[in-house]
């Protein structure tokens, strides 16, 4: 079974600075998808960024980018120019790709990292 580990329960960053949230995962599959979700105090789960494992190029969405290291099974999220609205719980998630041999296509989440943004 796949597992997702977020080793930083909490992180803090100064407004306008850069912060990196770490995520590692364990899998025997060769193709899969990785996601970062954000959960602000409103509890709504919001997709931040996603990455296909067979694409070597790191995904980028505005101020959010990932550092995907497939061999190391690492998928960190970098937030540049942090804003107060970035304060939230961030979850890393894994999903098997079709025909990867996975038994199903559920999202497996890490335990989350609580990000605080200081003004």
């Amino acid at each position, binding site marked *: 079974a796949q597992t997702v580990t977020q080793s930083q329960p909490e992180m803090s960053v100064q407004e306008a600075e850069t912060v990196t949230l770490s995520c590692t995962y364990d899998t025997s599959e060769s193709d899969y998808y990785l996601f970062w979700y954000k959960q602000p105090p409103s509890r709504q789960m919001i997709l931040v960024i996603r990455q296909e494992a067979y694409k070597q190029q790191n995904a980028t969405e505005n101020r959010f980018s990932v550092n995907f290291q497939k061999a190391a099974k690492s998928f960190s999220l970098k937030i540049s120019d942090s804003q107060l609205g970035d304060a939230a719980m961030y979850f890393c998630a894994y999903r098997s790709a079709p025909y990867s041999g996975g038994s199903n296509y*559920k999202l497996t989440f890490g335990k989350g990292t609580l990000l605080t943004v200081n003004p």
Partner: protein
Amino acid sequence: DTAVSQTPKYLVTQMGNDKSIKCEQNLGHDTMYWYKQDSKKFLKIMFSYNNKELIINETVPNRFSPKSPDKAHLNLHINSLELGDSAVYFCASSPRLAGLETQYFGPGTRLLVL
């Protein structure tokens, strides 16, 4: 328009009661999910339905029974509620079962069992 809606948003009830949470999506998606988020914020899948067919059942007690009357709805019925059932329950949907498409989450239902 709300993409994935859940009712109620809050539910406070006594141990032993039976309760239901409703979920509806207006996105035309084929696949719907129920997740449980515990007090430590850990989010774990419970069920997944694809075109009204149960696909994933993650060792959830059989007191929990999902029902999908149509593709747009996935309701969760819980019998004989226990203290440990207190959590936030999220419904989600995605265009199809497998793929890179994101799952769209509802706002969550906070269940408190007293």
